[in-house]
């Protein structure tokens, strides 16, 4: 990495850490912790991957990953995942059209918030099975299907829904939540720092010009988009784990029992050492995946599945251990450890469980492909 880029990332990271920590402090009691729309817009993060010509920053997935990592460190509802990660990510994979470009610009400016209707579960291997299909109804096209656990669905002004068209080609259908035949409903989950919802299409009429096509191979593009979603969650889990590891080390340094800081007990020291090792391994895997997926390198899917399966399983272990080492305090609502644990558990399932991603890796051994030639 060039030194310019490193400095840029350091700066982005420092600003994000400050902004997000401030937003968490502002959180009203009883309300889900969230980053308000103005602050998010002002941050410039929404347009990071939007081309400069469309008023974006023209940056890359690497910078988005920095923000995602920081958002894991300070979990809040923000709409960033729906709009900037999945929305912009989807749009950048589509054929450039005026409508697409307009929407990119509107996301960058914060004017429009987007949610993307993708499979959010264990569909990580084989042909993509989108949640929606387009049917011909005379001259019109109608949309049917239902995507569940869609990030930021209920706050979205615009919906981008991955579907198969009547020719079985993967396309993206642009819709409004208010369209007839569409229904958007929040799905309440234990993790209050995520906003997830279901988008049901019951024969919704698709407006003229709302079926958008991928610029490259649709199957590969859709899989890429889903890989991006999985990797975004891996970045988040890495951030969660890192923050909880640091919090645990800090707490163990000040909490005294038996006349000593608990951090001087070998059991606590060794548990923290294991946390660090696990976090460092995940960091490498996530970093590699961000690099490869950002460059459209072959084998990026493998790197994503490694990062997703490792980081999301690791985060549950590390945050769980953090709760344990915080003792009674860690089990209180007030300590906030629970929020990290709930998010880590949700992250583990969102966009493919560790097992599902390992199945994708394991498929290669069966296929007899030389595993090493990919390296």
């Amino acid at each position, binding site marked *: 990495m060039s030194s310019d880029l490193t400095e840029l990332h350091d700066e982005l990271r420092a600003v994000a850490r400050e902004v997000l920590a401030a937003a968490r402090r502002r959180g009203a009691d009883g309300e889900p912790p969230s980053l308000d729309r103005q602050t998010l817009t002002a941050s410039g993060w929404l347009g990071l991957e939007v081309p400069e010509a469309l008023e974006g920053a023209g940056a890359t997935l690497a910078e988005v990953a920095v923000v995602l990592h920081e958002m894991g460190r300070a979990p809040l509802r923000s709409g960033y995942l729906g709009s900037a990660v999945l929305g912009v990510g989807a749009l950048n994979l589509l054929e450039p059209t005026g409508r697409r470009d307009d929407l990119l610009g509107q996301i960058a400016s914060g004017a429009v918030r987007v949610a993307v209707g993708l*499979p*959010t*579960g*264990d*569909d990580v291997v084989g042909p993509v*099975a989108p949640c929606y299909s387009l049917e011909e109804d005379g001259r019109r096209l109608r949309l049917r299907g239902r995507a*569940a*656990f869609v990030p930021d669905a209920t706050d979205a002004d615009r919906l981008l829904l991955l579907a198969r068209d009547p020719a079985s080609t993967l396309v993206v259908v642009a819709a409004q939540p208010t369209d007839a035949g569409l229904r958007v409903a929040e*799905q*309440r*989950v*234990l*993790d209050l720092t995520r906003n997830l919802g279901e988008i049901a299409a019951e024969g919704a009429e698709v407006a003229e010009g709302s079926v958008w096509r991928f610029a490259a191979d649709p199957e590969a593009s859709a899989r890429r988009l889903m890989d991006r979603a999985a990797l975004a969650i891996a970045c988040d889990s890495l951030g969660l784990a890192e923050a909880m590891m640091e919090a645990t080390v800090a707490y163990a340094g000040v909490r*005294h*029992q*038996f006349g000593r800081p*608990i951090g001087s*007990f070998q*059991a*606590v020291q060794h548990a923290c050492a294991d946390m660090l090792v696990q976090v460092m391994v995940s960091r490498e895997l996530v970093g590699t995946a961000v690099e490869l997926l950002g460059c459209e390198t072959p084998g990026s899917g493998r790197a994503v599945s490694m990062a997703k399966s490792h980081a999301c399983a690791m985060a*549950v272990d590390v945050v*769980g251990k953090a*709760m*344990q080492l915080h*003792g*009674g305090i*860690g*089990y*209180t*609502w*007030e300590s906030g*450890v*629970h929020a990290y*644990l*709930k998010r880590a*558990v*949700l992250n*583990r*399932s*969102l966009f493919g*469980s*560790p*097992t599902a991603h390992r199945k994708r890796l394991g498929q290669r051994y069966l296929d007899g492909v030389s595993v090493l030639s990919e390296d």
Partner: protein
Amino acid sequence: MTSPPPPDPEPFRAEVREWCRTHVPTGWRDAQTGVSDEEFVSFQKQWFGELREAGYAVPHWPLAWGGGLSVGEQIVLYQELAAHDAPRLVLAFVAIHHAASTLLAAGTDEQRARHLPAILDGEIWVQGFSEPDAGSDLASLRTAARREGDAYVVNGQKLWASGAKYAGWCLLLARTDPGAPKRHGISYFLLDMRSQGVEVRPIRQATGESHFSEIFLNDVEIPATHLIGPENGGWQVAQATLSAERGMTMLELAERLGHAGFTWLLDACRRPNAEGLRPIDDSLVLDRLAGFETEIAGLRAMCRSLAVRHETGHVGPADASVVKLYYSELLQRMTNFGADVAGLAGSTRIIKPMSSGWESGAWVLDFIGSWEWTIPGGTSEIQRTIIAERALQMPRA
């Protein structure tokens, strides 16, 4: 082991089975989901009353006080209650176990006569041991009790008091000799929670519930007759009774893990996921399930052995720690796996039924709730140290 073989428990098993079939309320889990505190307390008291009438509420008490079942019969009772998924006695728990065993071991005749029948009548107790700076290191507690005439005046703060908001009485540890070495200046009191100066503030837990409270004690007067055991001898009383109840309650919890817990896990694995696949059709999942079934079988057998050893007086110095450690970590691993298998849908179960145990099928909540077993009552780290030092006689640090 020179005891005669226990009497055949099968006739008693048939009796309990029949009773469970006619008495365990159907659908109580749904009915107890999202209820108010009042409804919870009323349900618990009613269920306790039914068990009491059958002679099943305090089977471990001496016959004279209303118990008197043999260990073999107690094992059968808890096996059947678990097999029929009966509600748990969560509200009466401290009263019938900790309070009763303390009263029986160290109480005066008057104290027993005052409280044991009252407990059978529904008197609720809470344990006031932990403090903000005395968790794992309980002996460093600082709540102070100063003798003034016929009473002690108590000041301090207790933490992690389970069920304090419902309790009429509290088992209280407080320091009566500030000059003595840590464990030697502590006394054990029976505190009436309606006394002046007692304030209870619920603590919200990681699961969102508030089973625990802080108790603030501000110039609270406790009559000297409410001291239990000798002045400054409270630590020994507490140690002797702390693990006394472990045998049978752990057996109950192990049986519940083996019945409701494992059944729900099988159910979760049979439920098709978003892609229409059943986890159970994957040999990876079958392997994990078989591993859990094996571990639960080991836990249940260990608990049965421990219960029998309790009766014959052959309990090892860290047996209770072994069982607590193994149960709590198995519970944690199993609920973690349940949460993993349940997937995204598992996170939508945002409330669990009252009166249930640590496994309810709401996997994510159950997983988070499992820390309520690995932390309180001596963290897993403390248990390992106890096992090493007491059971294996390893040198102290």
